[in-house]
């Protein structure tokens, strides 16, 4: 009898897992975690950002286990993240204190503090570099020594200014009166990993879901917005990549003071402030243009995603029934990697009880139709 497709499961699973391991190791060479950490910064940054877990080593482990498949790697880290108790909450991090490594503005050529290109692929020619085939640890170390000597002499010239306190483009616009000031919102932010989302959502919740969103999904939706399936036309006010310091309050002191707090390390982040022009109607139909800000912030260097996030942030601030990209349920419910890939892949599961039930319905409705036709002929 043919009734084995979904039985004998225990044995089948064991064999399948063995087969999977074989696929991972069949070439006979192991990839070490430190090599993943050393050479796969882009993938690590993407995986950390979508997992919302900042740990390069764990990310490297997940990438190794997932054979480099980001969807699987994120899945592994998210599941691991669920088991971690929440012991501390950091002090508020002010992004003005970023140790900037890269900073550009598309809005101003001569931005106060200057444009800092930093490390970017933007101006590389996308030509396959066959020299990398021959790259060895020795050639890398030689290059590094030369690079450090060169850098050392640059730092000595000391014309870089203070990279820890660069002025923000938005502050300049505010001082020029082109951008309305905004009050600090000191409300306790929501936490989408601890409380299920309810609508209308808070902005803090929206930003969390956007920053955890699948890179491709966030990018595609934002692309749809600027191509016309949305109602805004943004420019990059400022994009920064750099290190942000994290401080914890002393656990035993009630009123945490900054000087009592502990510095526990830095993390790399990409921060984007998008400028979105908005026509506002003033007195007697007189129209003026003002700027609004869309905010993007991702762990690691994830520039496209951070820009896309800034676009969607502003879209969701302005609900618009004409465009799904301005509908918070549409955007927030569908960009999460673990949720979307899980539900799509669950279609692989057997559905034969439901199918049997559907067969029954179809047969009965056919009987009914025949009955009625017979009735008509009689």
């Amino acid at each position, binding site marked *: 009898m043919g009734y084995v497709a979904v039985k004998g499961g225990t044995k089948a699973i064991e064999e399948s897992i063995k087969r999977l391991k074989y696929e991972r190791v069949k070439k006979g060479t192991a990839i070490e975690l430190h090599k993943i950490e050393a050479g796969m910064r882009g993938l690590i940054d993407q995986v950390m950002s979508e997992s919302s877990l900042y740990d390069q080593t764990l990310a490297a482990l997940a990438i190794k286990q997932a054979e480099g498949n980001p969807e699987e790697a994120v899945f592994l880290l998210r599941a691991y993240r669920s088991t971690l108790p929440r012991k501390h909450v950091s002090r508020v991090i002010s992004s003005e204190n970023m140790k900037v490594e890269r900073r550009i503005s598309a809005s101003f050529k001569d931005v106060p503090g200057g444009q800092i290109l930093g490390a970017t692929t933007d101006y590389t020619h996308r030509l396959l570099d066959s020299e990398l085939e021959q790259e060895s640890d020795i050639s890398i170390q030689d290059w590094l020594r030369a690079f450090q000597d060169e850098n050392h002499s640059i730092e000595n010239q000391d014309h870089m200014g203070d990279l820890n306190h660069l002025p923000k483009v938005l502050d300049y616009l505010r001082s020029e009166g082109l951008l309305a000031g905004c009050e600090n919102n000191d409300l306790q932010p929501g936490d989408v990993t601890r409380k299920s989302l309810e609508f209308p959502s808070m902005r803090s919740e929206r930003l969390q879901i956007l920053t955890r969103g699948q890179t491709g999904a966030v990018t595609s939706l934002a692309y749809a917005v600027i191509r016309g399936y949305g109602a805004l036309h943004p420019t990059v006010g400022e994009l920064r990549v750099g290190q942000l310091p994290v401080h914890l309050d002393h656990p035993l002191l009630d009123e945490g003071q900054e000087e009592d707090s502990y510095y526990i390390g830095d993390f790399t982040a990409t921060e984007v402030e998008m400028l979105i022009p908005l026509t506002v*109607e*003033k*007195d*007697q139909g007189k129209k003026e243009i003002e700027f609004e800000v869309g905010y993007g912030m991702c762990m690691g260097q994830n520039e496209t995603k951070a820009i896309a996030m800034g676009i969607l942030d502003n879209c969701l601030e302005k609900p618009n029934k004409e465009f799904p990209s301005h509908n918070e349920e549409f955007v927030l419910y569908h960009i999460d990697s673990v949720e979307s890939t899980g539900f799509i892949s669950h279609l692989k599961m057997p559905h034969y009880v439901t199918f049997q039930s559907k067969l029954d319905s179809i047969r009965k409705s056919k009987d009914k139709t025949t009955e009625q036709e017979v009735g008509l002929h009689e």
Partner: protein
Amino acid sequence: MSVLEVPVLSVKQLNKQYGNGCSTCNYMKLGKVTKNYCHECGTVYACRGVTFDLHHGEVLGIVGESGSGKSTLMKSLYFDEEVTDGDMYVAGFEDGKKNLFMESAQKKRFVRNHLMGKVYQNPILGLKMNFSSIGNIAEKLISAGNRHVGSMETRGAELLEAVNIPIHRMKEEPRNFSGGMQQRVQIAKALSNNPPILLLDEVTTGLDLSVQASVLDLIKGLQRDLNISIVLVSHDLGVIRMLADRTLVMLEGKVIEQGLTDQILEDPQHSYTQQLVHSLL
């Protein structure tokens, strides 16, 4: 007091504003505004102190230009939007003694489902375009508690026939229908559970003249046969003249004139009404 003297619907001092108001427009006291709009804070005072009664079997017309607040008024009456303040009493609900605007969402829904019907200017708002026409009518009946398919089908067919929709098309979705037909399905739906109050919001606007005439005839016939009370909103004084017993004229959110329709047409008092009547002639 006889039943006939108790209004079927009574609205008192209905106010509806969009925006929070500010010190310039003096919130509801209306200091400095142009028309019904505050330039300082952008608040729109869409309805200002609207008060009227609707009597049994009466057709009450509300006329005014776009932006006069008449559609906002209709949305408020059907609870599509929440009012800023004011009272509304309906004879069939708690003996007409409870202010419906202060009642719970469930109670409001009860009144919508059992005591009112509404026909929207835009059929998309009044119909589910991807459900069958008979299903659209059944929705209203189900809301009012009906759980018998046969009786709903019969009632639906009867109503569709009354509004001149061929019975063999009753299982079709209204999105396949012309504008006039969609409007007639909406009317059938609104009438399905014999509501004592029918709200008609610009029901003929945007239809061809001949279709307009047939829809107006239909309403007139139904009103006569069912003796239903109707609030009818239109910017078109011609429609008002044909159907309304009594008329309110609205401008900038306020009722500026009211009276018997004939009286308003023949002897308009307010300069705006005079202008309106003049343009009709």
